[in-house]
């Protein structure tokens, strides 16, 4: 009896075991890679390839190009347009390069530029706001005029923005584009929505010579840092970014990989919930907080080499419009304590927390989980605040839930992803952060507003940048409106034989370079 029973169970187990082992061995597929082929493992998802919605990604992977582009040293350089000039206070004239060919071999003309930009702005309102374009008109086949909504000296820089890329209008029946035809070094081959995978091939017709890689595969949506790390280690992808912070050292020691850590126009900062209300309406309190942050220890112990302590200015070092003479508030606990004392915050009841008029300095530090370094930075700041008698509680929640709490007494954000070069021009970041009508934290300085307005309509580059430098001096040094903590560096991991990657800190988060090849 028992014998039979065990036998049947045994055979069932055997079948199960066979099934599993069969499936294991059937998948011993060698991951073959042709000689000049690159597989990229990308963090974000794509979803569709219509350039009206996704030219940003197409631009980062060198499929689509704009009228201008931006070099790794932050200079605006010609791309589809050879040259441009202002033709009035709110109008710009662009002269196209006459030798540009689309991936299908046809020539690029002003008509293509006009219709592509018009289509993008119609379908993707975000671009409309970011480009500030009112009207685009063709002058002749290779010349066009762009009129801006307001007098705008930054238009040529805005045209380098990935979302302003130019493409051919080859709509399907339903009005979308599923086969983008652009002008870049790589051309679109196919896109599979289910696996979010984009296949590209080299553009033999490219005006500066075909790229060295024959093909590029981009696998979007590998959102998990551990998964990306293992994908690059197993050789499933040849190029990926942002492995877990703690793995940097180990990957650097792996002989089969290259680890490149480079500057990016992004940072971490402390942001006050409301600078128009107590306790942050008092500049002394804001300065005390700025002095209390030990930026070096955050950069060294938390960012582990993938970042650099801020010198007091959140704008990326190297930008032409950056004010390098910001004094900043370097770590000084005593100064912080003194300033708090001067502002009336003293520990009268001996509990280690400063108080004023019976109110203890107890606050909440909010941050969000998507950027891996943020919770750790918040915890470090929490303990640094303790030193000066501020009792902070760290709370990690979704971004939108945090912005609902901006009214709480003393709330503060530990913010990351603070991108100052989404559009390669100072106006974008500085207006967004410090123009009083844009400030969600109620910062208002008439002088700053005035300088920003002047800069908008100043077309002389040096004078214009100088105005923005004055703004930086006021907001960071004089007003201490925000507290920059550190610059975020991008970590790129590639297979050892992937050579020729030239970092371009302007792109978010990176842009492959046409010089990449397999050795």
């Amino acid at each position, binding site marked *: 009896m028992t014998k039979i029973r065990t036998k049947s169970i045994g055979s069932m187990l055997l079948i199960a075991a066979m099934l599993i082992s069969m499936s294991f061995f059937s998948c*011993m597929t060698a991951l073959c890679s042709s000689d000049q082929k690159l597989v990229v493992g990308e963090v974000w998802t794509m979803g569709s390839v219509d350039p009206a919605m996704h030219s940003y990604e197409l631009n980062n992977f060198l499929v689509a190009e704009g009228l201008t582009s931006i070099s790794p040293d932050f200079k605006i350089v010609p791309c589809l347009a050879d040259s441009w000039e202002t033709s009035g206070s709110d109008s710009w004239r662009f002269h196209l390069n006459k030798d540009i060919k689309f991936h299908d071999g046809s020539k690029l003309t002003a008509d293509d530029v006009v219709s592509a930009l018009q289509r993008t702005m119609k379908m993707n309102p975000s671009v409309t706001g970011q480009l500030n374009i009112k009207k685009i008109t063709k002058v002749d086949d290779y010349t066009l005029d762009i009129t801006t909504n307001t007098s705008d000296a930054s238009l040529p820089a805005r045209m380098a923005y990935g979302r302003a890329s130019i493409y051919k209008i080859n709509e399907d029946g339903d009005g979308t584009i599923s086969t983008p035809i652009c002008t870049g070094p790589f051309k679109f081959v196919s896109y599979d929505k289910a696996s979010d995978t984009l296949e590209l091939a080299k553009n033999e017709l490219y005006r500066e010579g075909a790229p060295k890689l024959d093909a590029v595969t981009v696998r979007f949506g590998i959102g998990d840092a551990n998964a990306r790390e293992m994908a690059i280690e197993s050789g499933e992808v040849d190029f990926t970014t942002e492995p877990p912070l703690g793995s940097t050292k180990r990957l650097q020691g792996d002989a089969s990989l290259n680890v490149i850590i480079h500057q990016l126009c992004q940072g971490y900062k402390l942001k006050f919930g409301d600078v128009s209300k107590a306790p942050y309406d008092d500049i002394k309190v804001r300065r005390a907080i700025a002095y209390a942050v030990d930026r070096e220890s955050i950069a060294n112990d938390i960012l582990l080499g993938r970042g650099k302590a801020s010198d007091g200015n959140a704008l990326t070092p190297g930008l032409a419009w950056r004010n390098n003479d910001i004094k900043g508030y370097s770590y000084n606990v005593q100064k912080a304590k003194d300033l708090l004392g001067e502002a009336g915050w003293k520990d009268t009841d001996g509990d280690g927390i400063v108080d004023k008029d019976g109110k203890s300095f107890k606050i909440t530090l909010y941050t969000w989980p998507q950027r891996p370094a943020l919770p750790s930075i918040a915890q470090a700041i929490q303990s640094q605040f303790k030193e000066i008698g501020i009792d902070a509680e760290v709370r990690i929640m979704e971004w*939108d839930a945090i912005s609902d709490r901006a009214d709480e007494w003393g709330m503060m954000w530990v913010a990351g992803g603070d991108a100052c070069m989404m559009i390669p021009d100072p106006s974008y970041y500085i207006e967004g952060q410090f123009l009083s009508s844009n400030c969600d934290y109620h910062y208002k300085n008439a002088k700053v507003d005035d300088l920003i307005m002047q800069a908008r309509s100043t077309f002389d580059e040096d004078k214009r940048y100088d105005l923005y430098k004055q703004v930086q001096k006021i907001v960071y040094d004089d007003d201490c409106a925000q507290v920059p903590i550190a610059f975020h560096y991008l970590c790129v991991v590639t297979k050892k034989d992937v050579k020729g990657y030239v970092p371009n800190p302007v792109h978010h988060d990176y842009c492959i370079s046409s010089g990449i090849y397999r050795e």
Partner: protein
Amino acid sequence: MLLNFIKRLGIFCLVLVISTTLVFFMLHSLPGEKAVVMAKYIFLGNVELNPSNEEIQQVKDKFDLDRSLMSQYISWAGAALHGDLGKSYQSNDPVSEEILIRLPATITLAFVSVLMSLFIGIPLGVLAAVKQNSITDYLCSTTAVLGISMPNFWLALLLILVFSLKLNLTPTIGYGGLSHLILPAVTLGTASSAVIMRLTRSSMLEVMRQDYIRAARGKGLSGRSIFLTHSLRNALIPVITMIGLEFGHLLGGTVIIETIFAWPGIGRLLIDSISARDIPVIQGCVLFITLMYMLLNFTIDAVYPLIDPRIGGN
């Protein structure tokens, strides 16, 4: 029979209406005003930036968000009744397409995981019950406890480490051939195998203590016939219910596993849509998941009489 069917259909519709209504109204209690969140996705493409007031107003106008919640719900429901689930405002694609494109990945993964839990859970459960209190039993039970208590994201990473990195047998991530399916399916299958195994064991033990088994032994039936027609068959009823639940759960998506393996399933679609307040897609997913649960319940109910004819009698 027909009456029963109509009754069930009625309940089915009621559940659909209640679940979509609940979700629709619950979405409004999420932190962050809907129009603001949508404006971020539409105008800025970045949740870490703040949209301007004009941008927020534009979103309100375009999606008619200034209307009362009730009227918004009614217009959604009206269109849905006509089979129009709307368009995702993020991708501009119809919701049905968004779901359909992820359907094969979701169903394959759920099906293979459940199949795996059947093939492992039931035999091991039976074995443990038959050999109660033996080494085999302890071994099986310990493994099951381990399987249940291991966090699945950890198991997933461990499996990738061993099978992809060390042994180089499977791809680490992505969606494609059979080879991509193994690790996610094993990860999900492990926990359900453990659940199924424990349930099978306890249910089997219970059945084996029943009088009718003793009677069967007494009348001299062979071990095989007692096992197959009496004990296993009766023990499987709760197991089948559990399998239905597990299957439904897996069809609803498993966000963490889908994220780790970059698997294009419904779970990720739903979570991404919730953070973007892409209401049509969220509602579409909820409809789909409810539908799947209901269909599974139907199927399970249809299977019961095959195993236990007493159930069909009612």
